[in-house]
């Protein structure tokens, strides 16, 4: 059994229909006044240049039992203003991919291959200080545990002001004004008073709002949100997701949303990338992937969802569990668990092939020779 959470009974995308090839997104029914500069919403297949472009990324961990490859040949792009959901079981490599993009891979982990481009310029292997200027300013980040993300010894105001002034040329007073605005915007009541409170004086949901405000402080164009709701109560999860979606639309900020919760992805993302054993096995528009998954693993994921339209067969469950990094099978890493495995899967590794509106790394979708 997997620990990926399925989508809710009615996995219809939260927003209106989307073009089959993920083209222009229809405007939001109730557009809030845009604050930041609004980016044209173009996906990677459109004519605009992608905001983030990850090509053949490979992350390795040297250990005493040999080098482990935690992320292998991962390629994807995020357009300005787009929300890309990255879903997978724990250990699938999704958080490592996020950490690699913001240059915060923990040693001994290292980028062993591929490249990461932000606005067309490479940002992997940048000098330490240049990468630091990108973090927070151009790529923001939100982590799983809001209780642990804030420094307990500083008021949230001083942490906000510190972040703002690190990246933007502002006076202390101006930064404070902006901090209060940010707090209001993320829905902290009585922000002008609460700004001087310490993290322990806030509830979990409020703290995650503060974390979002911190991530948005210097108005970055991309936010990497790593399991932003996992540590929160279910009732608060929805609020945070709604908030994140609203703010990103207002500011035109793109989001890489890392989660194991398909429900969150279904509600929030434009496109989704499914990761398995360090690789992307399927990537495509979220509605299509949910409605018509192509890779047997994704099919399994979706099949484990109970449906209200009653007359479907029994729920499907994927046998076995994801391989450990020390023992990734040859060929397609999913083949030992795949119910449609055939000879080719055992030895040859599939790349991403076009499969309808999505792309899937499965020999079933290989173009005919």
């Amino acid at each position, binding site marked *: 059994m997997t620990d990926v959470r399925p989508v809710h009974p009615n996995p219809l995308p939260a927003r209106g229909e989307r073009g089959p090839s993920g083209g222009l997104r229809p405007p939001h029914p109730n557009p809030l006044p845009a604050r930041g500069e609004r980016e044209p919403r173009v996906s990677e297949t459109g004519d605009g240049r992608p905001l983030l472009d990850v090509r053949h990324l490979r992350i390795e961990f040297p250990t005493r039992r040999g080098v482990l490859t935690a992320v292998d040949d991962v390629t994807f792009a995020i357009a300005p203003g787009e929300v890309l959901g990255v879903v997978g079981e724990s250990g699938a490599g999704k958080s490592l991919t996020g950490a690699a993009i913001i240059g915060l891979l923990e040693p001994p982990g290292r980028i062993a291959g591929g490249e990461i481009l932000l606005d067309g310029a490479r940002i992997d292997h940048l000098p330490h200080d240049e990468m630091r200027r990108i973090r927070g300013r151009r790529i923001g980040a939100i982590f799983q545990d809001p209780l642990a993300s804030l420094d307990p*010894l500083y008021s949230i105001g001083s942490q906000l002001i510190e972040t703002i002034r690190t990246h933007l040329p502002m006076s202390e007073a101006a930064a404070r004004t902006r901090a209060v605005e940010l707090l209001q915007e993320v829905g902290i009541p009585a922000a002008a008073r609460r700004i001087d409170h310490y993290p322990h004086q806030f509830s979990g949901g409020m703290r995650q709002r503060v974390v979002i405000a911190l991530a948005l402080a210097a108005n970055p164009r991309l936010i990497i949100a790593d399991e932003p709701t996992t540590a929160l109560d279910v009732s608060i999860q929805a609020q945070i997701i709604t908030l994140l979606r609203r703010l990103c639309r207002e500011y035109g900020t793109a989001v890489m949303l890392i989660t194991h919760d398909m429900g969150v992805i279904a509600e929030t993302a434009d496109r989704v990338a499914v990761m398995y054993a360090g690789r992307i096995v399927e990537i495509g528009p979220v509605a299509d992937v949910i409605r018509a998954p192509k890779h047997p693993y994704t099919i399994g994921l979706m099949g484990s969802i109970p449906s209200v339209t009653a007359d479907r067969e029994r729920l499907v469950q994927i046998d076995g569990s994801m391989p450990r990094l020390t023992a990734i099978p040859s060929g397609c890493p999913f083949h030992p668990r795949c119910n449609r495995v055939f000879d080719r899967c055992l030895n040859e590794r599939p790349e991403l092939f076009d499969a309808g509106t999505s792309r899937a790394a499965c020999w079933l979708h290989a173009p005919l020779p």
Partner: protein
Amino acid sequence: MTAYAIRRLLQAIVVMLVVAFVAFSLFQYVGDPVQLMLGQFATPVDRIRLTHELGLDRPFYVQYYHFLVNAVHGQFGVSLRIGKPVSVLLAERLPATLELSLCAAIFALVVGIPAGVYTGLKPNSWLARTMLSLSLLGVSLPTFLIGILLILVFAVKLNWLPAFGRGTVVHLGGWTTGLLTKSGLVSLIMPTITLGLFQLTLIMRLVRSEMLEVLRTDYIKFARARGLTDRAINFGHALKNTLVPVITITGLQLGSIIAFSIITEQVFQWPGMGLLFIQAVSYVDIPVMAAYLCLIAVVFVTINLIVDLLYYVVDPRLRVDRPGGAGH
């Protein structure tokens, strides 16, 4: 704040009462003070009279009460070995011990904390590795041996520094200080290093491990993700969080410097309380032992109290004045 301080104060008083009880037991149940004071040629009448005068025929809690009253007034009786009141002996020797301990504490902190921060931030640099190896050597070197080696090199072989004593001291009211004369200052160098070195290595290793611990936390990771400068992360966030536990343990270490001064004072024949105490242990001079014990306990309890209050100042989580509202 007030409630917190009062609770701490009460705890401190309980500890003091317990230590005082140990000291009291020393007096009452170890040896026979009447025999000690009268010698073996006393008549039974003398014995009964003295027993009554000393209050030894009264119930034990009354005796304990009188002991406490006397202790609070600094009255611990007369030294069996020297024949002077213990309070006078201790008062004479207090300045020497305090000056030495203070210098050693400053030395340990001023060198230990930066060294710990450095080795925590750059754990793989050669300098950090060298310092860490040296610190293990420092932990393995008994205090008295450090003193002996220093004397051997700087006093016996090189003849640069005096091997023992406080040098010339200046009397300021009831206080004697060696800080105002050249010979006094020079005499302080080796004892200070001897006494401080062990604490220095402890503080350095503690700061380092706390620093490494803090650098692994999520809020440091998030601070990096916010793009803060290394300077802000290392010194604004990591160091400040490191200081919370470091203050506690360092505070306690500083207390133990005064206790460890026993050894240093013995090596350098430093005329302080520790030397007095160790001579008292050898001669089973119980009034001096009891008084020293109580005095050291006061020092420790006071330091503990100050540490707790400092903790409160540094860590906002301990402040009880939580406003209601959005918090839960």
